């Protein structure tokens, strides 16, 4: 019996190896046909599937594939610092343009870029100045968070929205207590105070970007304190915040990409970073030869780099028309420089 089983298994193995080998050849053919267009690698510090930061960077790449006809590969580091260098080098060997997503690459990108002077590095989410082939895209998270804070401050005292209490108390769950996140926090608090100087903003750092359970715990703690709206700035950990909002019938604000679709009943809005857009625009500039290598592109409200998103049209809005109007007013004021949003580093 055992022998027969072994025989069968090895037979399956051989046959499918053959088929796999054949199909593999076909794949390479397809690739060869699409040879025009620049070759791009996307290197991310975390992993795809966060429905947030990294996924939105991939959207930019996908868009560029479609519209600009680029060839692209994604390399994930899964938050393992020993892989940052490896993957970056792998990418540098493969492609002409390397899109690097994650503040964690600060050291390695400088080291590697030096060794590959003819490659272009687009570095998202951190600022390195003065290296000719590293171009940075810096998002004014604080500006976007300012809008989120203002919206939350307006909504939290509005009892016409189901489940809101009168208390002027809003919350935020941060992934880690690190400078980027503190920049979100600074904008969020400033925005809230702009609407209501008396408002209380409670922040909890979950200590992790990959652990929804911790996010849920933190959010539940905030809701228990009388907070009705929690702004999540925690990557995958934020999924736990959404779950907590659903379980306790409260509200959350998403981050990085428009996350309302995850749960339209509890996620009132999302502060979006135009990660995908900025990547697409950068690649477009390269195609059009308008790219200024070595500079820093700032993406604030003015550049459509950060914004508030309220989901697609078919979703029922939780916030009122007036609130959206007010948010748009604030946006204009920031563009005109009438409001300066504080920064934290």
């Amino acid at each position, binding site marked *: 019996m055992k022998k027969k089983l072994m025989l069968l298994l090895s037979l*399956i*193995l051989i046959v*499918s*190896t053959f088929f*796999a*080998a054949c*199909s*593999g050849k076909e794949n390479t053919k397809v690739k060869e046909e699409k040879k025009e267009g620049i070759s791009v690698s996307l290197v991310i510090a975390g992993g795809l599937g966060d429905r947030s930061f990294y996924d939105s960077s991939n959207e930019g790449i996908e868009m560029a594939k479609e519209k600009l006809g680029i060839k692209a*590969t994604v*390399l994930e580091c*899964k*938050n*393992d*610092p*020993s*892989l940052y*260098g*490896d*993957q970056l*080098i*792998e990418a540098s060997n*493969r492609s002409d343009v390397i899109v690097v997503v994650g*503040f*964690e690459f*600060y*050291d390695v990108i400088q080291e*590697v870029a030096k*060794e590959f002077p003819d490659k272009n590095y687009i570095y998202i989410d*951190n*600022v*390195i100045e003065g290296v000719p082939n590293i171009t940075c895209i810096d998002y004014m998270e604080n500006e976007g968070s300012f809008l989120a804070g203002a919206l939350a401050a307006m909504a939290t005292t509005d009892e016409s929205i189901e489940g809101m209490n009168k208390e002027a108390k809003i919350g935020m769950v941060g992934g*880690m*207590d*690190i*400078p*980027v996140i503190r920049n979100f926090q600074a904008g969020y608090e400033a925005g809230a105070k702009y609407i209501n100087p008396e408002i209380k903003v409670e922040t909890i750092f979950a*200590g992790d970007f990959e652990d929804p359970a911790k996010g849920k715990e933190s959010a539940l703690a905030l809701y228990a304190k009388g907070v009705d709206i929690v702004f999540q700035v925690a990557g995958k950990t934020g999924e736990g915040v959404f779950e907590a909002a659903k379980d306790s019938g409260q509200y959350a604000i998403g981050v990085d990409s428009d996350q309302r679709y995850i749960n339209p009943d509890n996620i009132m809005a999302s502060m979006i970073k135009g990660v995908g857009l900025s990547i697409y625009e950068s690649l477009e500039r390269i195609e059009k030869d308008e790219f200024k290598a070595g500079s820093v592109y700032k993406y604030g409200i003015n550049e459509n780099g950060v914004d508030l998103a309220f989901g697609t049209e078919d979703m029922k809005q939780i916030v009122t028309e007036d609130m959206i109007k007010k948010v748009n007013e604030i946006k204009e004021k920031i563009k005109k420089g009438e409001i300066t949003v504080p920064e934290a*580093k």
Partner: protein
Amino acid sequence: MFKKAKDNVEYLISLFLSIFAALLIGALIMLLNGQNPIVGYKALVLGAFGSKYKIATTFAKTVPLILTGLATAISFMSGIFNIGGEGQLYLGAFAAAYIGFTFTNLPVFIAIILAIIASALIGGLYAYFPAVLRVKYEIDEVITTIMLNSVAILFTNYLVNYPFQAAQGKMGGTDMIAEAFKFPKLVKLSKLNTSIFYTAIIAIIIYYLIKKTPFGYNFRIVGENGVFAKYAGINTKRYMILAMVISGALCGIAGAFEVYGVHYRFLQNISKGYAFDGMLVALIVKNNPVGIILMSIFFAMLKTGSNSMEVATGIPSELILVIQSIIILFIAGENGFKKLFKEYRLKRGKLVK
């Protein structure tokens, strides 16, 4: 001699069978995913050894594995279980980094010695407390060391984001250590640096300690049969504490090497479970120092190779985790294997009278 050799041979056979079976199951998973395992494994091997750079990258990854593996071996063989290597590594790394960015004017040699000593001390100290709790009050060291991991990781997290935040750039790390202190690289671009020589020296010392000295003998006997050791006049408590401290010190040094050889600063995520990988390595080879080195190379190969494999073939690198787990599962069932093997031999009639 004969019998001992036979035991070893039997163990090696079951080890290779386990690895082979794991790779076979890995191949099966690839097939189920519609991928060609031969192409996949070829990409894996090429990814790990395909060029000078790749080989260097693979060997660079062995450094923390060997150190934490040896750390595990010395504690486990002495019958006290240090699961807190990760925390000891973080603290050791931070201590070394602190010396590297604070005393930047020290002569290079002294600074490096100082950093290694500091990391060993703090790692050892951090293991000392749970060891004393275990020996004096019978508080389970497995639980305390696991919990102390989180304490150390979160504490260093706080340190790098507040008091010791890098002056330049937002990246969740401390300042860089002085340029002169950085361990020289051996192969361009790769992470392979002179720490591999230090690691070799440490491995030789630990090997000597375990295999050739009366102390190593005592560690082993304490672990094998504590009552016997005590009966024969060995201070078992002292040896258990000592084993734990050495183990912690090795993990601390692993942290220091990550700082001085790889990242040049302390990072908040400096290790993604090196100590646990090291533990697996040591468990698979039953705390044998030579085995730890070989198995570390194998694990490093899987890790480096799997990423290249993923890029080249689209086979997810997580598959390697599956393979590693299966090897461990089979090794855990080693006795069962041996029995099967023996029964098979019996049935075949190849018998020793």
